[in-house]
């Protein structure tokens, strides 16, 4: 039944105006069906609205459904419906009154909302509870359309009155509406939670529907009891909810109890009884459907971190079942490790070993990793864990072996000089390692225990062959490992160290690698004793729990138990837009690590830092070489340093600039002017360039990870500040007062928005950040993908598009090629639309698909695009027109990135 769209609409129009009522009803049904599948039936508006005057409730509801969908696009005609609504609000049948007020609230047309006020006021005081409960929600709807009007008309007061209503469902809906409204007025005391109101809520809690109970419990969790007695009495009345069949009621009750537990005296009987009461319902949640299990497990993960005592006896229920969906399996595994202890380790290990033979690769990897974590967490089990891991390595399953080697390195770190006997077995598997993590781990092990491995030099040399094809992580580790080897066995490995140093310093474009290479070189050449002290220094033990959620974040997430935040383990502002304003909020998240371990440059300690903290000094090449040419090993190194270094480095002045002489005082010497971001920061932090930006969408959260590169220092970060072409500034200043310890990492999120002064940067999407700490101010810059600034209302009307396209001068049109893209036109528009690039029209010209698209930036600049897709040709032609042509280049880059992603 393929009708052309116009033909279908024509027929429907005729049917809608049919004399027979039944025919009209059937026609409206067809219209709704077409609307569901996404056809545009807005042109039938007047005909459908004509059918509204009916006493057939079913027909009326269908017409209302249509109205809710299209009223916004036809505001003038929607007015035609007002009369009928107002009349229905007076209907003797409460169901019809409620229907009218419910629908009117869904029609987001200003003129209609004006007419809504009077009927709504009446409905809020209606004699029938069904109408009142509907009206309560309608206030929230109206507030979403026009907040000012709701305040002016006094609807908030009427809503507050409903909290005292005799009907529990009215109370619940009023609470829900007030909670939502108060979210957009964070400071106002809209809900006015006083002991009296709380009492009313607790009474309604016993009587209302399961959903109403959820609204009330979620609201209660925001209340701060005066004293412990009040907290206890609320807890007592909330506890019975733990036996509700609805898991959301249970989780919301758990949230209230978890929050109020903080207020109760720790030694009281009640506190302990309450703790005991929490465990069975949490376990029961795991017998629900898999999706609810997943939500429950994500929450239990938080609860276990906050209060491990609640579930410490229950580890068995987290054992994985063969048929569990993979998402349930992975979560259970995570909780198992958290609950592992001396008492249950035997059982846990037996389970983990079982899991390591399963099919799903992610799950198996996680299981292997878990065995390693058990070894680190429960000392008594370490031996058993190691032997289990060795068994697994014997299976020769590639990814199992690699994962096992990574965790064995951690075990070596935790228990030095205990399990080195297994190194031989590990070395057998050298060839099968193809993942950077595993290669790096193996290299680290070989370097660390070079003196016990007879052929360590051969092993490391074998990695050196493809040095430039390795990932940075492997390169850095290899560099350090060879330097370690050299310091341990200097006589045999000179050539090797020479080779790696020259590979790192001369042939690499990676500044981190180069810097580290020079530092070693320098160190080796100036003072071999210090070099030994530095490179082979004793490493701090690694901590038992490496992936705990940071305590303040954990506390925040506990307050969001049951909600999406607890599922994502992210604060709500990381994934929810601010409910107000046109400015999208951007979150700059800085994850600051100070990891001493694994990061072999950590061996270099703080004194290296000083080198780079001084103002950059241009040192004549010759002099630096002379300093370098100290006889390290009684002439043995002369060939190394004198010959190679002098020749190689001397010829490259660009490299020499980074090479800071050791004459800089060996104390902290913060420079008077902040050092520009150069290699200086790289030595202090590792700035991960793999920033994750939530895909698609407009402004998303931005994660920058900074890894501290040295071990013995604490430092704190005080302040971040950003400047940007789009006027991005932080909404709040940020200070972090707790010092950062070695191997500690802290996540900092900083909300940003685009209301700041605009300053043109080059490149345009450059984000500059200043980090001030007790050492100095550091600057770094990073690129934000431009798509973050594509706003949601970037869809141009077709006519406007045509006019604008003509209006923009032709010299502003820029053409680009997107190469190697194998998508069809629909997928392309779908992908782009997810990133707020909207397809306005699609044409097929001579077998080519032409897509006409528009997008808008937060600063109001429109970009028009024409994308030509030829079937069979993987190269697309993109023409961009914009009044500010300088952005085109970046837009093209985004296109390219989005389509290839």
């Amino acid at each position, binding site marked *: 039944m393929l009708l052309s769209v116009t033909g279908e609409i024509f027929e429907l129009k005729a049917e809608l105006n049919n004399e027979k009522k039944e025919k009209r009803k059937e026609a409206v049904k067809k219209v709704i069906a077409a609307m569901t599948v996404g056809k545009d039936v807005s042109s039938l508006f007047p005909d459908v609205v004509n059918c509204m005057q009916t006493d057939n409730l079913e027909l009326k509801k269908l017409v209302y459904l249509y109205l809710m969908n299209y009223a916004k696009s036809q505001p003038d005609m929607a007015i035609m419906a007002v009369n009928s609504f107002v009349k229905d609000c007076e209907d003797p049948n409460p169901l019809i009154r409620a229907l009218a007020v419910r629908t009117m609230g869904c029609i987001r047309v200003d003129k209609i909302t004006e007419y809504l006020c009077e009927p709504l006021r009446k409905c809020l005081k209606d004699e029938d*509870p069904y109408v009142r409960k509907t009206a309560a929600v309608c206030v929230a709807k109206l507030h979403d359309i026009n907040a000012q009007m709701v305040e002016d008309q006094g609807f908030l007061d009427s809503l507050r009155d409903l909290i005292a209503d005799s009907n529990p469902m009215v109370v619940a*809906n009023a609470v829900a509406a007030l909670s939502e409204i108060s979210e957009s007025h964070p400071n106002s005391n809209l809900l006015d939670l006083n002991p009296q109101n709380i009492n009313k809520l607790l009474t309604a809690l016993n009587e209302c529907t399961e959903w109403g109970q959820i609204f009330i419990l979620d609201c209660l969790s925001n209340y701060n009891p005066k004293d412990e007695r009040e907290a206890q009495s609320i807890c007592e009345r909330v506890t019975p909810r733990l036996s509700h069949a609805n898991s959301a009621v249970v989780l919301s009750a758990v949230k209230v109890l978890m929050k109020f537990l903080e207020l109760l005296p720790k030694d009281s009987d009640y506190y302990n009884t309450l703790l005991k009461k929490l465990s069975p319902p949490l376990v029961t949640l795991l*017998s629900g459907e898999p999706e609810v299990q997943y939500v429950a497990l994500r929450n239990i993960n938080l609860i276990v971190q906050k209060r491990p005592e609640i579930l410490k006896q229950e580890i068995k229920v987290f054992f994985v079942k063969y048929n569990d969906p993979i998402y349930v399996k992975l979560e259970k595994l995570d909780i198992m490790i958290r609950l592992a202890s001396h008492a249950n380790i035997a059982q846990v290990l037996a389970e983990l070993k079982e899991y390591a033979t399963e099919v799903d690769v992610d799950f198996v990897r996680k299981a292997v990793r878990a065995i390693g974590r058990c070894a680190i967490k429960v000392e008594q089990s370490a031996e058993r864990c190691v032997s289990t891991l060795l068994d697994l390595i014997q*299976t020769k399953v590639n990814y199992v072996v690699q994962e096992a080697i990574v965790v064995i390195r951690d075990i070596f770190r935790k228990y030095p000089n205990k399990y080195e006997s297994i190194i031989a077995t590990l070395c057998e598997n050298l060839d099968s390692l193809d993942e950077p993590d595993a290669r790096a781990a193996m290299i680290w092990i070989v370097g660390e225990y070079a003196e016990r491995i007879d052929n360590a030099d051969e092993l490391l040399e074998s990695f050196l062959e493809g040095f430039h094809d390795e990932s940075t992580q492997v390169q850095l580790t290899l560099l350090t490992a060879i330097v370690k080897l050299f310091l341990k066995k200097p006589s045999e490995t000179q050539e090797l160290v020479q080779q790696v140093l020259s590979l790192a310093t001369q042939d690499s474009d990676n500044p981190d690698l180069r810097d580290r290479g020079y530092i070693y070189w320098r160190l080796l050449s100036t003072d071999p004793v210090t070099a030994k002290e530095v490179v082979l220094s004793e490493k701090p033990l690694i901590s038992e729990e490496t992936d705990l959620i940071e305590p303040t974040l954990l506390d925040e997430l506990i307050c969001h138990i049951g909600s999406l935040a607890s599922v994502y383990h992210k604060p709500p502002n990381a994934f929810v837009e601010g409910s107000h304003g046109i400015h999208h909020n951007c979150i700059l998240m800085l994850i600051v690590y100070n990891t001493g371990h694994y990061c072999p440059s950590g061996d270099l300690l703080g004194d290296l830092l000083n080198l780079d903290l001084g103002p950059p000094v241009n040192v004549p090449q010759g002099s630096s070489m002379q300093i370098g040419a100290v006889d390290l090993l009684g002439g043995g190194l002369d060939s190394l340093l004198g010959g190679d270094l002098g020749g190689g480095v001397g010829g490259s002045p660009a490299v020499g600039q980074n090479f800071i002489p050791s004459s800089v005082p060996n104390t902290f010497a913060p420079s008077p002017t902040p050092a520009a971001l150069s290699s200086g920061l790289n030595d202090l932090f590792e700035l991960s360039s793999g920033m994750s930006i939530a895909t698609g*969408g407009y402004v998303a959260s931005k994660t920058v990870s900074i890894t501290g590169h040295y071990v013995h220092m604490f430092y704190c970060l005080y302040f971040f500040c950003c400047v940007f072409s789009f006027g991005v500034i932080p909404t709040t200043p940020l200070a972090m007062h707790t010092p950062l310890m070695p191997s500690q990492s802290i996540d900092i999120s900083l909300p940003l928005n685009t209301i700041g002064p605009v300053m043109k940067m080059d490149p345009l999407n450059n984000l500059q950040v200043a980090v001030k700490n007790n050492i100095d101010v550091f600057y770094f810059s990073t690129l934000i993908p431009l798509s973050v600034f594509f706003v949601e209302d970037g869809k141009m009307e077709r006519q406007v598009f045509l006019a604008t396209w003509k209006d923009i001068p032709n010299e502003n049109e820029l053409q680009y090629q997107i190469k190697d893209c194998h998508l069809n036109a629909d997928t392309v528009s779908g992908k782009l639309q997810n990133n707020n690039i909207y397809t306005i029209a699609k044409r097929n010209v001579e077998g080519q698909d032409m897509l006409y698209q528009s997008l808008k930036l937060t600063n109001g600049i429109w970009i028009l695009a024409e994308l030509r897709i030829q079937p069979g040709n993987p190269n697309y032609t993109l023409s961009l027109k914009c009044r500010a042509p300088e952005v085109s280049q970046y837009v093209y880059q985004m296109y390219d990135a989005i389509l290839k992603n």
Partner: protein
Amino acid sequence: MIGGLFIYNHKGEVLISRVYRDDIGRNAVDAFRVNVIHARQQVRSPVTNIARTSFFHVKRSNIWLAAVTKQNVNAAMVFEFLYKMCDVMTAYFGKISEENIKNNFVLIYELLDEILDFGYPQNSETGALKTFITQQGIKSQTKEEQSQITSQVTGQIGWRREGIKYRRNELFLDVLESVNLLMSPQGQVLSAHVSGRVVMKSYLSGMPECKFGMNDKIVIDKQGKGGTTDDSGKSGKQSIAIDDCTFHQCVRLSKFDSERSISFIPPDGDYELMRYRTTKDIILPFRVIPLVREVGRTKLEVKVVIKSNFKPSLLAQKIEVRIPTPLNTSGVQVICMKGKAKYKASENAIVWKIKRMAGMKESQISAEIELLPTNDKKKWARPPISMNFEVPFAPSGLKVRYLKVFESKLNYSDHDVIKWVRYIGRSGIYETRC
């Protein structure tokens, strides 16, 4: 709150699309299709975040139900709502299938309008909904009927309407338990629990007040202290420790919390009164003893013995033992003492079925599995042997002690109500590793 609700068929075509919130754009419906339904990978999470929009989905046979939101909603509530939505649809038109949804789309929109308002779930009890969402229009109702409907939908007892009359007052009570087991090859119980449900069908007149009693250890112990020694001696032994239980919303939870008594005004017709879980002193109806021997690289010998462990007078039914076989199986020969056994290549398993088996018996199967030689280095994962069965008792040991009905306004008493009680124990995930 929930911003929109979409229903798709297995191809990703939209069958129902209802948007409640302005922040959900038209593209949301496509985003889910492209990123989840058409995704090449297996579903890794029931919650997906695409371009700052969160999608919750559940699947019923071929049908996808997705709720979408841009806010920090109560995630558990959204899933509970989706389940409820499925229940409501099933109650109205039977199985959730593409055809049924297409044929009832007007009804579904009407339901969605009623049970979700601005994304807030409202009363979703089918008993109440069926009184006014009838697909007939409501012209014929009198004023009293209308206010009765609204007071029921919003009222304290939203699950039952007034004025129900039956000539015969009858109650059916089923104790349905599923017993779950994970056993090591050596016969050590790694984990075992019973999850049970008390399901009722009530055909009672008026607004009866019911009280349900079972051999709950806490109650029995409490009574034992105050009551006669004779009574506690008899039942004390048989009482069971319930780890946790949850109730239908008709049960007065505060009363259960304070007195541990289960009292309620029941919905009319079918409903699930309670769910419970026990882990102590479970009667495991069957024991599976596996023996797997690898003979060289191309042959496996499997022997499995099952033993029934309950009163000889009782009969277990629908027994099925599923023995997984490696993927490279080329042929299987089976010999079993009882029932029928077949190798099912498509399921990679030997399925052994026995119609009936009495208590305290045992039976065994032996199989020779021929394997194709492979280069695959990865070892066969040896999935556990699973079992299905049905037994006419409750493996947890739960016993119904009483179910009393009081209706003060009408003239029938507890004695006039005909009550039927039945116990069924089924296998949940009943696995033995081999």
